[in-house]
């Protein structure tokens, strides 16, 4: 499994901005992730969903990047959701307690159902 630089694409559905993530969330992902988050905030959505269905690898620096996004979201009163995590990264979100602050859904549809 070769390293895959992160690509992030933003779209909007209902009241949510959805950031589709593809590739690795590691030190190299910082710019792409932050740019996508800034773009997602443009329309001032109350909810931002990180769709991690295309993510193969998250390391500790990737976790730190997500912590920073979460801090920004909380500051501006937005809810941060995540979906598409593999069982392993779901476990890591639980161990790090990110799952206490980011509600996690299996997929985009289930995440948007409750909005």
């Amino acid at each position, binding site marked *: *499994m*070769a*390293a895959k630089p992160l690509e992030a694409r933003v779209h909007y559905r209902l009241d949510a901005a959805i950031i589709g993530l593809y590739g*690795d969330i*590691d*030190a*190299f992902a910082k710019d792409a992730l932050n740019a996508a988050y800034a773009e997602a905030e443009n329309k001032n959505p109350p909810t931002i969903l990180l769709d991690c269905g295309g993510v193969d*690898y998250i*390391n*500790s*620096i990737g*976790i*730190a*990047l997500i*912590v*920073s996004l*979460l*801090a920004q979201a*909380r500051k501006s009163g937005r809810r941060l959701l995540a979906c598409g995590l*593999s*069982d*392993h990264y779901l*476990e*890591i979100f639980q*161990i*790090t*307690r*990110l799952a*206490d*602050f980011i509600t996690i859904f299996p997929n985009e549809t289930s995440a948007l159902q409750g909005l």
Partner: protein
Amino acid sequence: MTVLRNFWQTLIGRGDHEPPVTPVPAADRSASHRAAAPALTSLDIAPNDPLVAYFQGVPSVAEIDRLHLDSPALRVLKAARVKLAVPLVSQGELIGLLNLGPRLSEQDYSADDRALLNNLATQAVPAVRVAQLVRQQQAEAIARERIEQELRVAQLIQQTLLPKEAPVLAGWQMAAYYQPAQAVGGDFYDFIFFPDGRLGLVIGDVSDKGVPAALVMATTRSILRGAAQHLVSPGQVLERVNELLCPDMPPHMFVTCLYAILDPASGRLQYANAGHDLPYRQATGHVTELRATGMPLGLMSGMRYEEKETLLAPGETVLFYSDGLVEAHSPERAMFGFPRLMRLVGEHPGGVALIDFLRRALAEFTGPDSEQEDDVTLVILERSASPLPSVEGREGGEVWRTLAEFALPSVPGNEREAMEQVAQAVLKLNLPRARLDRLKTAVAEATMNAMEHGNKYRPELPVLIRVRTSDTALSVRITDQGGDQPIPDSETPDLEAKLAGRQSPRGWGLFLIKNMVDEMQVTSDATHHTVELIFYGEGDTHGRQTA
């Protein structure tokens, strides 16, 4: 018999090795007349002088006063009051002239005289030609002998000054190979022993061949040995050598030179480089250059030499070499080149056997009939392979099998490579998916820590990874070169504090590792820092995971 007042034999110059021509005096030359004519002892006629073409076209006696050519040689003959010139032509080539001044009787030369001279010339030509060839051969033989003598001197200087054998150091293997070219290039290498046990390694190349190169090599070697005794830093040593060499360096000559100091106890290698080919460091198939910048010695004073250092781990090899290897040509005139050398070094397991491997590769590349173009020098430094630092108490009673052992340069992103290689190594253990994922994350995080904190992301410092299994456990040891640095206390990450900005968002690595593995052990010695990740059997794993 016509009495000749002056008689010279003038030979045409035939190149640098032509002996000077001795004038042949006339048998009855009188002192009174000798004073009247300017002496014409020898005359070199340029091959493009019109006189040459004239005599080759008209090979018979000519009256000099009647010739009107724009010829420097003709002007000299006229000034010397030569009356007749008899060309000596051999196989269409003008090889000499018989020049005659006025007759003693002051009468003109008769038709008989001319016929006689033409006959004389015809008979003299073969003898003159033979004499010329003999002299030419003698001159060439002398020149050849002089060149061979010079080569013997150059070889003697080099062979006397090059080390007779490679140093013997506990825990290290060293070997050197030196093959001079026919013309003897300026390659040299040297080992300098210091009282504290450190070892200086020198490899260099003078930009010329033969005796001049050998003399500059000998001078450089002496100056460097002297400077090395007084200065500790390799960069300062090269700086000093450069300052001393510059004033006396012959024009258009310079010396490339790499100077390294090895501390055999720790494996620390400090080095500086004055424009020499970069050594290759080989660690389990990964090859990196030991790069440090600096101008060749003897070109310009006031130069500074960048100094670098690295730690050589057990099993690692460094190859020092000269350009005679990389600049060798194949019969098709392709160059051996750095990429080929780097690839070959990577393909070989390393150690002193690399010398024979490269020699064979070079011989194969240049072909059987090639003449060696330049000196070839190879010096190998290998730290003997030894087990990674052992972790107390974990070895007892267990039989461990090594599944994989490899090294990775400390380059951001290489933790992915570590993760994949370990996953590959444990493939046959058929670990459950969840366990494999935890192993991979733990390996990636520990490798990142080793590259970042232990090795400061210096690519030349490798992270060593060994994967072992026993009947009851799986162990991955990840070793960096940061043993002399204290292990930073890791703060347990507190997400609330991070979200509130009271803690850095980072700092998850060690926390993740501890949560992924059943047991983690950390050990350090003077040079290494090892994290061992341990996974027990399946039942145990679950028991500890939830603890």
